[in-house]
């Protein structure tokens, strides 16, 4: 397994170099002039030029790139102009927010989608199968911001069950001391149940929104791969040997059906992390998605580069993790590697 990891790590380096070059060039190719944008509404040409010099944007591209790479070497991702903060600090502060939300949504989603998928496969063409299909289709076809706003409208505005959609914590709570950056975990470590409850209630609506959106791929893949496995010879043999259907389905069939499910999970997780921008916008969630989009709108180079780089690293790590998990789940994969 160690050789697998080190082999994969070797492949990562050219990937990252490519990402660095491409994001740098892409952000420069964006339309829009950050100097004009940040010189403010009342600046004349001279003021804009002054800003350009201050931002170092008057230098040739290759020198700007050299500076960028040198800064990267010192783990300095530059400073965002829209928020005024160093990009690294911002990403560090915001990544846990996005990760907590995404993980929470994903766990909810798995808790619902996997059993649903298994049931749908076992009772193929029954009402459960059909309702699974309907739920999955509806979930994936409703745009996330719509689901989010609908939930806010019903549970906050009409019923008043859910707290105000004001980010990770109610205005009158202060965040728990940072250990992991996950409020749920930090507040528990701190034995602060009131904060835990407050954080959980803020997390519930956006988590549910993400969950509804990601139900479909997980439920459908579980169903499909369960169907394939249930039709295979060893399941028939197991059944013929008189094993009860619970053992057959959960121990033998599901374990073998898990590989594609895990692949999908990895994919769903990584794309949710970057793509829950809209959920973050609706719930005023201080995550990295909304950060990157705001930076993009104002042609703020540094955060966009930092975001893409972070996402690239995350994808790489995630893929590696999934590959390792394959080996744990299915020994055959280990042998082939």
């Amino acid at each position, binding site marked *: 397994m160690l050789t697998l990891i080190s082999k994969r790590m070797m492949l990562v380096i050219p990937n990252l170099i490519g990402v660095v070059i491409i994001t740098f060039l892409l952000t420069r190719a964006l339309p829009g002039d950050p100097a004009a944008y940040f010189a403010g509404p009342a600046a004349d*040409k001279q003021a804009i030029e002054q800003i350009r010099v201050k931002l170092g944007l008057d230098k040739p591209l290759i020198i700007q790139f050299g500076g960028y790479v040198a800064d990267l070497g010192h783990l300095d991702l530059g400073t965002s102009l829209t928020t*005024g903060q160093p990009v690294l600090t911002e990403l560090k502060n915001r990544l846990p927010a996005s990760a907590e939300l995404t993980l929470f949504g994903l766990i909810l989603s798995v808790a619902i989608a996997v059993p649903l998928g298994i049931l749908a496969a076992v009772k193929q063409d029954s009402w459960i199968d059909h309702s699974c299909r309907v739920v999955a289709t509806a979930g994936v076809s409703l745009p996330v911001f719509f689901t989010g*706003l609908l939930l806010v409208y019903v549970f906050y505005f009409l019923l008043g069950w859910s707290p105000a959609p004001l980010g990770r914590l109610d205005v009158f709570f202060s965040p728990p001391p940072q250990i992991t950056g996950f409020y749920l975990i930090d507040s528990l470590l701190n034995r602060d149940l009131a904060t835990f409850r407050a954080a959980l209630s803020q997390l519930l609506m956006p988590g549910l929104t993400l969950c509804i959106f990601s139900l479909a791929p997980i439920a459908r893949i579980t169903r499909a791969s369960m169907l394939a496995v249930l039709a295979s010879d060893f399941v028939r043999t197991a059944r013929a040997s008189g094993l009860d259907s619970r053992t057959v389905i959960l121990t033998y069939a599901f374990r073998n059906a898990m590989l594609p499910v895990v692949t999908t999970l990895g994919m769903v997780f990584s794309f949710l992390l970057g793509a829950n921008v809209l959920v973050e916008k609706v719930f005023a969630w201080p995550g990295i998605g909304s950060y990157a989009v705001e930076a993009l709108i104002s042609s703020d180079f540094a955060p966009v580069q930092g975001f893409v780089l972070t996402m690239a690293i995350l994808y790489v790590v995630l893929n590696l993790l999934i590959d390792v998990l394959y080996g744990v789940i299915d020994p055959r994969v280990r042998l082939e590697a």
Partner: protein
Amino acid sequence: MQRRDFLKSVSALAASTAVSSPAVFSSAKAQSRQETLLIVSESGPNNLDIHGVGTNVPGYEVSWNCYDRLISHEMKTGPNGQPYYDKNKFKPELAEDMNIGDMSVTFKLKKKATFQDGTPVTAKDVKWSLDRAVSVGGFPTFQMGAGSLTKPEQFVVVDDNTFRVDFARKDRLTVPDLAVIVPCIVNSELVKKHATEKDPWGMEFTKQNTAGSGAYKVASWTAGTEVVLERNDAWVGGPLPKTKKIIWRMVPSAGNRRALLERGDADISYDLPNKDFVELKQDGKLAIVSTPYSNGIQYIGMNVKNSPFDNLKVRQAVACAIPYQKIMDAVLFGLAKPMFGAAAEAPTQVAWPQPHRYNTDIAKAKALMAEAGYPNGFDTTLSFDLGFAGVNEPLCVLTQESLAQIGIRTTINKVPGANWRTELNKKTLPLYTNVFSGWLDYPEYFYIWCYHGKNSIFNTMSYQSKTMDGFIDGAVAAAASGDMATYDTDVRGFVDTAYADMPRVPLYQPYVNVAMQKNVSGYAYWFHRRLDYRTLMKG
């Protein structure tokens, strides 16, 4: 990788669709959090110091409330019966006395004034702060220059408590320019401690920390999420504010800002779509205040340097073809002050903004097009800033429809917010809509920027006219020397010239709309159009 690429592109696509808001109605119950005010808005500051590089407009609000200036404005009753700053009456803030001489103005500082860290405010701090404003470049230096404040030598320390500003030339905008946000007084000793060779003005420090003597100090700031401000109980700039704590949260979704207000969770918000404001007003559960932008106009501009808009008749035809009333009704829901349709015989006022005499008249527009030599019309593009798409897009679609009736076939060109200034600066857009508004509320100030032949970036039409320049320069000189008769003639002169040549067609004066709970009082309109926390209170 193909699947992942696909998912990535799908998510990017999803991200590019806008968040829209559902209609929400319900009974709202105000919660009482007497001493704290919760403000929600779309975006927050990127820098707590207005002298910083690229400080955004929300940053101005922090500066206004956390720093003092030498002088500020008195209040009067505005056009809507609400408190409104009085542009002609100044009141001391850090100064206790202002003495305007022929070529200088002298201030006596309040002896008890201290910065938030307890050090007394001295004339040295004042000089350092104003030196800083004229030296750092960018917007602050530009704004100081608008009042002929350009050189550190103009700022003189007489003694510890006395400070003098020497005039570079006679300019009636010099004193008002000392009451805008930029000339704020900074704790020089504190900031100098954090200054470095590369950063002699300590801008890195003031970006994250407030170092003023103002009524509020920033207790915590999480960029893009929240700003918490606490009252400075030792403030001497005015009566002690009633609100102890301000929590300012960024809520990007307009629908949610409205829901928060209607549920009574948030106290104030001021950037909602016009439609929401109209509905909230009809509901009557919240207090809504609408005030026209001072010295601000949304207009349709035409590039007069190039064909076909170099032709006066074409410009007049456009002015006749714009669907003014439809824009007022369908785009703004009535929340704007019309700048069209003045009576033909009405005399020109010595005031700005004032309406022009055009109305929508398609038959007349067609005739003008024929006279101009374009009986079959022409093709062109109509551009707008996507950053304000909520108003600009329907406005442009209505205008496009109407222009099509007189043969002007337009393609709508949506320019992303970050790119808009660049495009305007090139001065090549043939036809576009834009807003200009000036902090200093004087007609000649607007005209210097928007119509003068020195072609500032706001003269987006590249308009050049010797007559116009003569009137504008005349008005500036007359105002400085106090010759009000000449001033009045010149102001009427430049307004008449602008409306005769019609390089840009004013549409309306936009409104600043603020929605707040009924128990919140003390909102006042300021030239900067942001909130002044010092007068706001609950109950």
